[in-house]
């Protein structure tokens, strides 16, 4: 899950505040000790730093490097291609449609997840008998691995599956879902939402718990009704957890891959050709690694912009 990746704007400030305080006068023994401590610290850190550099930083640069290479099949070797792969990508109408599909998907899905998980959090933090049980039942799908959500919902959404059975039982017509170019992307959205709601709900509930009870008491003394309290106290004070969920959820949604690769292969008619699948397809199915890597770089840039916006929002908030 990509979610964990975005919680640390706060931690960075923390790191800056963490600098050692002014040091006492240095004696030779102390200096020797400090040197030994530094050596020990880097020995203890070495495996982690090596892992992070080789498994995260190096591939980032290698994507950039390979995106300016071209594999020539006739000569069987790679040559420098400059920005050729980017030019190909950015003037390619298939890539335009990939970007469009990915953006539309994200612009609809992520706000929907934020609104729904907030609604769930509000409902399930009221005083209700056995509220813990209802909360757990809503959370459980979040424990289902992302790749398992796919077969579950492809079975539930097939013509004689659960969803159509329920639709028919309440007198609605059965729907084609994954096999229709107008409903396939929506169906993938349903899967993702189902697997994500309970998880994000937990963060909103945590945010709700941070709102002081006294604010509500004062508002009630002033005669503010439930809706008034919702819009004047709860939602404004939930801004921070909600914007966090929106960003984290957006980064995750840009990386959706399994449902497309397993179920639709980008179809019907390219209607579910999300960017991660298109990258995989370019790099490994079509075998044009250079173009695939250029697309990876484009994706990294998009996500960097999103994360930068998150940092800004969180910093403004903490002022």
């Amino acid at each position, binding site marked *: 899950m990509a979610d*964990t*990746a975005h*919680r*640390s704007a*706060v931690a*960075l*400030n923390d*790191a800056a505040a*963490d600098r050692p305080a002014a040091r006492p006068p240095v004696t030779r023994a102390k200096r020797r000790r400090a040197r030994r*401590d530094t050596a*020990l*610290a880097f020995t*203890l*850190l070495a*495996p*982690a730093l090596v892992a*992070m550099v*080789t*498994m*995260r*930083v190096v*591939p980032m640069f*290698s994507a950039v490097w390979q995106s300016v290479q071209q594999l020539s099949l006739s000569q069987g070797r790679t040559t420098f291609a400059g920005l050729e792969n980017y030019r190909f990508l950015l003037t390619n109408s298939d890539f335009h449609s990939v970007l469009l599909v990915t953006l539309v998907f994200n612009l609809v899905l992520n706000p929907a997840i934020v609104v729904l998980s907030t609604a*769930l959090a509000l*409902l399930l933090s*009221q*005083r*209700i008998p056995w*509220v813990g049980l*209802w909360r757990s*039942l*809503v959370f*459980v799908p979040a*424990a289902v*691995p992302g*790749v*398992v959500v796919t*077969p*579950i*919902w492809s*079975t539930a959404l097939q013509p*004689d599956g*659960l969803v*159509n*059975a329920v639709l028919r039982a309440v007198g609605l017509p059965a729907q084609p879902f994954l096999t229709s170019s107008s409903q396939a992307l929506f169906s993938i959205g349903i899967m993702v939402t*189902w697997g994500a*709601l309970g998880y994000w709900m*937990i963060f909103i509930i*945590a*945010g709700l718990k941070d709102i002081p009870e006294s604010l509500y008491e004062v508002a*009630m003394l002033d005669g503010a009704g439930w809706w008034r309290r919702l819009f004047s106290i709860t939602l404004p004070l939930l801004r921070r957890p909600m914007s966090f969920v929106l960003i984290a959820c957006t*980064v995750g949604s840009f*990386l959706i*891959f*399994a449902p497309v690769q397993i179920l639709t292969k980008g179809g019907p008619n390219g209607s579910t050709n999300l960017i*991660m699948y298109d*990258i*995989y397809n370019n790099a490994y199915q079509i075998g044009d690694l250079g173009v695939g890597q250029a697309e*990876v770089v484009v994706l990294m840039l998009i996500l960097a912009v999103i*994360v930068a916006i998150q940092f800004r929002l969180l910093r403004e908030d903490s002022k």
Partner: protein
Amino acid sequence: MRQSRSATILLLAAAVATAMAVFLPLWWVFASSLRPGNSFVKYTSPLSWRAFIPVGGDFTNYSGLLGGEFTRGLLNSFLVAGLTILFGLAIAVPAAWALASIEFPGRGAVFAFVIVVSMIPFDTIAIPLSSLFQTWHLSDSYPGLILPALANGFAIFVLRQFFLGIPRELIDAGEVDGLGRVATLWRIVLPLSRPALIGAGMMLFLSQWQAYLWPLLIGTSPERQLAPIALANLSTLFSVNLGQILAGSFVLSIIPMVLLLFFQKQYSASLSTTGLKG
């Protein structure tokens, strides 16, 4: 705050309806996995209560599933996730201890580096990394499956936050007794750190258990296939046995669910340290 009786009933009804709507698909998967082969379809068209209460069901799908490729996948997944926890903690604990307990020049920069790197979503760099792994001769191997998950900055972060919370006197007492920093970590700090170790271990486990793109890119031969790949492959067979697929989905889901049930407290504590409260 007082709440009228009718409001409570209304809220209860809403909560039950929502919980059921979200949970029902999963329950249906479990009930249908007890219907041999594709026979669960009988109960959804038209919809009958038997779709949710598997009377007359049996474990055919489970025995079929466990007799096939899926079992090897499951064993591989356990092996890979277990080694990831082991090596992941072995890497993260010393790093976190250095960041929490030693004052050295560059500490702030190293910590910032750990945080920034852990914000790179792994899937974005999975494809360039997989082509590097080919040149490093690591594709289609257990190290190839495990190594990328070991670079888990959040495990370091969670452990560091926990170590910072351990009372200074306890650590100083260790030094007075003549223990070095490493011995203090091993003898005094780690025995106190069970919750953080469980939390970080859960993070490492879940990152592996939920992985699909990476094992797809790297572990191609059947002997080293992980369970999610084996499950996805079931749907590409010539005759698709949906009952078995649902049984496999249930098996792959119940394992993290049980773990989360047991370690819910430690896991959510870790989530909240990496979370908003910073």
